[in-house]
């Protein structure tokens, strides 16, 4: 029997955000609740709109670099890599091989740190506090390593057109190897503490189902897509940098739920470590900057699109150059925006707590969505 009800009378509007512990920043979600069931969830964006695209039209190509560390501060180096790659493609500068290797090593370290932070923050969303501190403890080691090379802990501005700003040291290499050893020892601990925990499994299993069809429709990318059984990764599908030269797998799970996305990320950490190890083994000698990089980068008229795989998915930059020192238009295609847009659909009819686990499993970084 279908019970007819006047929804207007029964539903409760709940404003989650812009300040809320589990929206990871300043996302606002207007929830229409029936009891604890969500009838409608409407994300409201723009609370941290920082004019990145507009700034691209106001700054020279080199001056725009620091912005790339701040669009998505958790995987800043991937963004660095994408922008630098796009400008290099436009201007035809080719970075030396050592620079490419260093880029991949540091980017993968950055991916590890991003995934570690996500892991901790996700368990925190689900109410577990201690794993958060453990993963931060591991993450601090990555930050130490990256700081010794790039000079900053979070918002890196390290890559340059035609190379990287500073060569890596032997200390960095030994430190990285030691860290990988350490993380390999710690991952089983995380598995016992969280992955196998019955409460955790019950919270994430069959929650936030993204069907492959819906994922395609919304343009979901990254681990969220691979958790739905679609094997798409920019590093394999449109290889860039030295990714074709290293051997790694793309973890795919076909559960379509939050648990699958979780497992994909945990497996990706292992793959990142594999990539770093191989890159360190193969690291060629040589300069880290291309010999002829003009002081003022002035790409010829034209446009170009370059995409990389960040920790959150497919990030692309589209640059239109009018031949001057400043870009005519810079368009950022950020993965978080597409990943969030599916939230309204998949959270409908679920419990309030499920919505939290779903949102956490999408790994949102709000400044990247609002740009």
């Amino acid at each position: 029997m279908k019970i007819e009800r006047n929804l207007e009378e029964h539903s409760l509007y709940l404003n989650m955000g812009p300040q809320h512990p589990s929206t990871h920043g300043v996302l606002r979600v207007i929830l229409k609740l029936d009891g604890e069931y969500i009838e409608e969830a409407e994300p409201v964006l723009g609370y941290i709109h920082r004019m990145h695209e507009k700034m691209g039209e106001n700054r020279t190509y080199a001056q725009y670099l620091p912005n790339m560390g701040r669009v998505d501060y958790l995987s800043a180096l991937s963004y660095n890599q994408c922008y630098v790659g796009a400008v290099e493609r436009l201007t035809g500068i080719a970075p030396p091989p050592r620079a490419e290797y260093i880029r991949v090593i540091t980017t993968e370290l950055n991916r590890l740190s991003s995934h570690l932070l996500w892991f901790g923050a996700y368990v925190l969303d689900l109410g577990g506090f201690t794993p958060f501190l453990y993963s931060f403890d591991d993450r601090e080691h990555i930050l130490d390593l990256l700081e010794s090379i790039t000079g900053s802990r979070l918002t890196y501005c390290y890559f340059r057109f035609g190379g990287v700003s500073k060569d890596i040291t032997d200390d960095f290499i030994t430190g990285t190897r030691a860290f990988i050893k350490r993380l390999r020892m710690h991952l089983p601990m995380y598995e016992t503490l969280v992955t196998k925990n019955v409460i955790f499994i019950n919270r994430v299993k069959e929650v936030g189902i993204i069907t492959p069809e819906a994922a395609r429709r919304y343009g979901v990318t990254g681990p969220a897509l691979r958790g739905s059984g679609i094997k798409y990764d920019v590093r394999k599908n449109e290889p860039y940098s030295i990714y074709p030269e290293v051997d790694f797998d793309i973890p795919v799970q076909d559960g379509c739920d939050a648990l699958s996305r979780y497992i994909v990320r945990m497996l990706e950490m292992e793959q990142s470590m594999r990539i770093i190890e191989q890159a360190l083994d193969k690291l060629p000698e040589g300069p880290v900057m291309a010999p002829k990089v003009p002081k003022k980068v002035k790409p010829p008229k034209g446009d170009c699109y370059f995409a990389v795989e960040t920790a959150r998915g497919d990030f692309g930059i589209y640059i239109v150059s009018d031949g001057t020192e400043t870009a005519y238009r810079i368009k950022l295609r950020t993965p978080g925006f597409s990943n969030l847009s599916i939230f309204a659909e998949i959270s409908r009819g679920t419990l309030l707590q499920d919505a939290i686990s779903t949102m956490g499993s999408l790994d949102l970084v709000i400044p990247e969505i609002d740009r």
Partner: protein
Amino acid sequence: MGTEDTKIKLIKPGVTSPEAAAKIGEVEPPLVRLAVVEEILNLCRANSLWPMTFGLACCAIEMMATGMARFDMSRFGAEVFRPSPRQADLMIVAGTISKKMAPAVVTLYDQMPAPKWVIAMGNCAISGGPFLFKGQYGIIEGAVKLIPVDVYVPGCPPRPEGLLEGIFKLQEKITGKRFWPVAQRKSHVAK
């Protein structure tokens, strides 16, 4: 529960700016002020600064890192991150305040019970930081344009030590003296 008593000893004059006190309106100046009681209260307040779980952007990650095992803000009694502004003493503005977010920031500040303090963490919260350019349309050029700021911690983002130093400065501001030694800076070769 001595409601009258607590209502009187609300705020130490000079802790937040008079403009701020006037803006809030609710905060009455103490009728009777006992110097000893004030001093003890301030000592307690300085050592129990509960921040609000409130992150805006990049600096929020460093704020979290300050609470984590390596830097451990809890040593100073400041790890009790309260998600509700009603229970917080300290607002760490960690990140860029966009124009859309500004009313929410002001609301959150107003919701906090006095005495309350604000730390502007990072360059964005101080002055708009790297997002300040001629013709910018989206951000507030510093938290101080919205709410009274007590301590500024510059950096992009500041290291966790910077935030800890900011908390020490705030303690200094509340009690009038610095409790902890100044960190001896030493540059080392990386491990």
